[in-house]
């Protein structure tokens, strides 16, 4: 059957691919499979902790929920722009492809910024992990502070899951940036790194988190050095797969972490 999937005029030296598509795509799908197990394991750890904790707190109220909903909208929209980019590149329309990619990155960035802002807010209100240095000044007291004290599982799972996801989104943005602009993206990336690093106060987890961007910049440079090439529509499609997957994961984190821990007063 997969014989039929190859245009016959093309010369081939291979058995038709069992999955009837090109290697890079299969490779990405395989990666996504294992990555979803990684996320799966985290979600199970979360559920495990939650099941075994009799009265799980529900500290999220309208404000957080609204914010998270907007974030979700951003992510969903970014998926839309992403498919449009893939489509544009399939039509060989390099220009609009690039524009759509940039739009996608913009939405993704919006997501990360909103998320980062919320993290900082929660931390300030006392929902922290022992590693996070305390914001100077007021000693946080209130619902979140209590939650962090009585149910350490809550901040642990919250920051664990959303942090891992945020990491994926950030790397996704870098990935798309490289696909869209290739080596011209490296300086932009470095600029972003400096901005994120110097722009955040020393007590914020993002002050150090920002170095992810630096690491990414280094790795990307190495790869571009090893494999200097023009990215074509297949690369865009593969990048798209990754991006949609990150979106998909959020479709589970959002209800489980936010909605299931929400109480509208």
């Amino acid at each position, binding site marked *: 059957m997969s014989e039929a999937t190859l245009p016959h005029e093309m010369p081939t030296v291979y058995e038709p691919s069992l999955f009837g598509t090109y290697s890079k795509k299969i490779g990405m799908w395989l990666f996504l499979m*294992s990555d979803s197990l990684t996320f799966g394991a985290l979600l199970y750890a979360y559920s495990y902790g939650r099941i075994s*904790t009799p009265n799980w707190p529900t500290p999220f109220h309208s404000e957080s929920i609204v914010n998270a909903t907007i974030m979700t909208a951003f992510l969903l929209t970014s998926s839309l722009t992403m498919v449009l980019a893939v489509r544009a590149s399939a039509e060989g329309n390099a220009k609009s492809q690039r524009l759509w990619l940039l739009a996608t990155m913009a939405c993704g960035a919006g997501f990360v910024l909103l998320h980062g802002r919320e993290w900082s807010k929660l931390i300030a209100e006392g929902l922290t992990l022992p590693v996070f240095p305390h914001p100077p000044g007021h000693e946080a007291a209130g619902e979140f502070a209590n939650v962090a004290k009585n149910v350490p599982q809550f901040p642990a799972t919250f920051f664990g899951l959303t942090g891992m996801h945020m990491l994926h989104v950030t790397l996704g943005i870098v990935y798309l940036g490289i696909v869209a602009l290739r080596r011209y993206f490296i300086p932009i990336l470095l600029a972003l790194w400096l901005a994120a690093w110097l722009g955040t106060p020393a007590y914020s987890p993002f002050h150090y988190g920002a170095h992810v961007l630096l690491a990414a910049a280094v790795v990307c440079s190495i790869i571009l050095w090893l494999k200097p090439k023009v990215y074509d529509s297949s690369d865009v499609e593969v990048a798209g797969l990754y991006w949609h997957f990150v979106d998909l994961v959020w479709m589970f984190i959002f209800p489980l972490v936010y909605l299931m821990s929400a109480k509208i007063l």
Partner: protein
Amino acid sequence: MATGEFAAHAAHAHAAPTSWIRKYVFSLDHKVIGMQYYFLALTAVFVGMILSLLMRIHLIWPSATLPFWGEIKPETYLSLLTMHGTIMVFFVLTTAPQGGFGNYFLPIQIGAPDMAFPVLNMLSFWVTALAFIVMLAAFFVVGGAPLHGWTGYPPLSALQSAGPGEGLGADLWVISIALFCLGALMSALNFITTTLDMRAKGMTMMRMPLTCWSWFITAILGLLAFGVLLSAGILLLLDRNAGTSFYVPLVTINGQLAGHKGGSPLLWQHLFWFFGHPEVYIAILPAMGLCSQLLSVFSRKPIFGYKAMVYAMLSIGFLGFMVWGHHMFMSGMSPYTAFAFSIMTMAIGVPSAIKTFNWLGTIWRGRIRFTSPMLFALGFVSLFVSGGISGPFLAQPVLDIQLHDTYFVVGHFHLIMGVASIFGIFAATYYWFPKMFGRMMNESLARWHFFISLIGTYAIFMPMHYLGMAGHLRRYSQLTELNYLHGLVPLQTFMTYAAFVTIAGQFIFLFNLFWSMKFGKKASDNPWEATTIEWTTTTPPPHDNFGGHMPVVNNGPYEYSVPGAPRDYVMQTDPPLAKAH
């Protein structure tokens, strides 16, 4: 239409590199990467072996002072144990058979010029190498290597204050494991894609040599298992350093509250073994595939029940994900789940049994040539049976009550993993050495090595079963404390002497390996008269494996002693046989 863009593709059909660094260090050539993996494993195995020797010495001469080392303290014993297990399982049995030989021969055997993703391939090796360095570094930091065993059960592994080595050493251990996961993931998806996409014309799945099948299935296991270990490791790292409590409930450690709350140690055990059991099949499957291959080659007889072998391996891979609980019968896991797990575990013995029978069926009415690879293949079968047969004991919770965490388990997994899988590596080395280095290895040295290893390892590991029966617990750094252990010391002493001899024997192998690289007698392109594609190309293979032209496959992989054929073997690339099977 964007055809123009695609032209770019052709660029990265990489040409042979010229600069030394691109040729040997950051090479994209799967053959070089295969070698790199192989020598990484070789280094690792000798480290692990020396560690095991130190353990054996400490067990029977607790107060012996060693040159350059001094006295081995109880906690040091546990560090040795931990590093021994980790290094052997991860950096030997997961790298050599798959990353090493798989990398080198999978593309050649399916008739491809290289792996699907050369760059990824290189990255996965270097990440693995980095992981190994991080792992070794644990020895040299303050507090030394961790003492929580290769299974790293929290809270022991999650609390900095739980013991010496649980500080920075344990952090490095976890980080190294996490890195290793990344490397393994990259190589796994590379293997799968290569097998799916890059088989030469005529190389249908059902014409692949069983070696390729085993690498393929191993890769699938790796892909699905390592992702889980990765997140388990991340969580452990968080518990250790971020003060979260995924695995740690409210505990007091030497008199103080550890500051954790609400976690569950069982969660780690589930996540770890969800990976851990597939991992042990990752360790054995390549050896199984290879030995099926060798038994057929050197009995000059088609493999007995090719399809059965493939399906057996597939079902081992499938069932392998449903039995992890058999490591947790005594862990406080729900006893009902335990019972379900024990049934699945017994079920997984069946495909292994099928394979064993097929191996016997293959040499039955064959014409056995006792070359060194064949000797090790036969040794593998014997060891696999001996090691595997203890599985069904452990798989029954009722018996596991007595046997769990005793030397019976240690005996079980050393025979089947510590030796059978290792015999697979040996066989592979002796079998493919000619193709890799263009020379033959020395046969008589090989025979000495074989008999010392076979008898020696049986002598080390068979007695462990008796110890286990008598209730001798594992991970005991001294036998002085429990009275009922005193009677068992002579047996332990015997094992240690056996270990001395066996380990000495391994240096014959090492010598033979390097000596033959230089002085071995020149090898022809197909010294074993085997049928698979790697023997059609020159020795050693050119950069793109086939010097420009791509092979076309017409026959199954095991056409030996075909009636009426000119030679007693028909290569896969020979003109098609009249009678198709």
